[in-house]
């Protein structure tokens, strides 16, 4: 009998110990150390819900890169548009700077820029104007021409008036009706006016995809595609000094 009891005790003791341990496991733990606070010291930076006009003065990049060009000729004054391609270089049309005695440039906010030289391309209605002052903003050139159906925006000074942004879609490509450009040009339904020549054509990402140079009677606009612009910019010999009416 003693052996039996000993066996029972031998069996019961571990069982009792296990029960105690299990019971301790069920017991709630003491609360941890008191936290110093519930406000985290670092929080993730909130993502902006809208880009807005993130520029020093609230104007977007498309407006800041636009330049108004006044061609003071020999007995005439005409206006056109242009846009910056680097800090001191802007692109416009050849016919905007043609027969000029003086080129006068102004920015979106009315500041005057001094132009030094003008160069024109012989194989496209494009021209380069160098400035002594720094241009407000420089856009990015797109890698490829826009496809038919793509939405584009035109930023310029139609009729030499206020800075205007118009939108439209690319209709397709065609040969140059004015025979001023080598290769194919693009047709869009974006509304342009005289004075819009040299305006930048931007895609949805704000990249330059072309340069306005003409319009037709049904208010379709013709643009020099960015591929042609890139080709011309890559070939330094494609631009020559623009002739002046002043001799």
């Amino acid at each position, binding site marked *: *009998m*003693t052996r039996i*009891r000993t066996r029972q*005790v031998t069996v*019961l003791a571990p069982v*009792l110990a296990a029960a*105690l341990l299990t*019971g*301790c496991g069920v*017991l*709630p*733990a*003491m*609360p941890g150390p*008191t936290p110093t*606070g*519930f*406000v985290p010291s670092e929080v993730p930076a909130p993502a902006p819900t809208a880009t807005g*006009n993130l520029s020093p*003065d*609230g*104007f977007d990049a498309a407006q800041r890169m636009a330049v*108004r060009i*006044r061609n*003071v000729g020999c*007995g*005439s*004054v005409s*206006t056109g548009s242009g846009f910056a391609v680097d800090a001191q270089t802007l692109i416009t049309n050849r016919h905007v700077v043609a027969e000029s005695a003086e080129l*006068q440039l*102004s*920015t*979106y*906010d*009315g500041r005057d820029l001094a132009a030094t030289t003008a160069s024109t391309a012989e194989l496209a209605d494009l021209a380069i104007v160098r400035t002594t002052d720094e241009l407000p903003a420089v856009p990015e050139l797109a890698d490829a021409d826009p496809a038919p159906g793509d939405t584009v925006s035109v930023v310029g*000074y139609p009729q*030499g*008036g*206020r*800075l205007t942004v118009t939108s439209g879609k690319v209709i397709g490509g065609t040969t140059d009706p004015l025979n001023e450009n080598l290769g194919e040009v693009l047709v869009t339904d974006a509304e342009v006016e005289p004075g819009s020549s040299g305006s930048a054509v931007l895609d949805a990402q704000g990249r330059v995809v072309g340069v306005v140079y003409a319009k037709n009677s049904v208010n379709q606009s013709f643009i020099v595609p960015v591929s042609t612009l890139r080709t011309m910019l890559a070939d330094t010999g494609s631009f020559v000094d623009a002739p002046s009416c002043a001799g």
Partner: protein
Amino acid sequence: MISGSLTRSPPGPPSYPAAVTDEPTAEPSAPPGSGRRASALDRPGTAATTEEVRAPQPGTVAHAGSEATTVLRTLPPAAATPDATTGPGGTADGDRVSSGPPPADPGGTADPGATAAPPAAGAGRRRRRWPVVVLSVLLVASLAVGGYLLATARAYAERLDWTEQQARAIGSDLALTRSDLEGARSEIEGLQVQLTTAQERITALADEKAQIGDDREAQRQLLDYQARVSEAAGIVASALDRCVQGQDQLIAYLEDAASYDPADLANYGSEVEALCRSASDANVALQSELDQR
């Protein structure tokens, strides 16, 4: 029918079964043939507690199953030892005598030394200790758990109070922050309106400046044109005047032609004609300037 004989010892002091609880459980062997059992207290001078058991003699009759045949002394049963072999009237096994507390024996025949009880009593006591030990352990464990739970509850209560204070403070801060946020949003909306107005005004002013510049250049060119036209007109007028004066003088010379050398008159007429031709050229230039507008 009791077949055995009982040798009583002189009456002595009463013995207690408990007196043997501390004795070793080993049972000393009795001398052969003596049939005597002795407890550990069976020492010289303690014979009063001894008890002799005689072996059954040949020829005696004993009823099997009769308790009285072998029980020389019946001890009271051990408490809490429900062992049938040690119960009241423990059965005899040969010359072994069952243990157990003696029954009420007014004759004072109790002989603890003859019970052979120490091993069973020690085991019984040990068996009795286990519940106590278990209950004691459970009690201590329960008290410990209760204390722990009480401490835990108090700690959580304190934490709850602290957390509630923190929550109220954070709630107040949140309400204040929301109010500030609403104010900031309203201010931003106002600033956006002001910014839009300022942008439109800047654009308008830039356009006005550009238009003024265009007008200035146009006026300057017009001024230049008018100056050129005026200059051309002056040249035309001067040439015409000289032409007219020359023609008048030529007419006067021709009215008195006999008085002048015909060759000189012809030369003068050619000069007048040149003056008038230059006046005509100046007029063409003037008309050309005028045609530019």
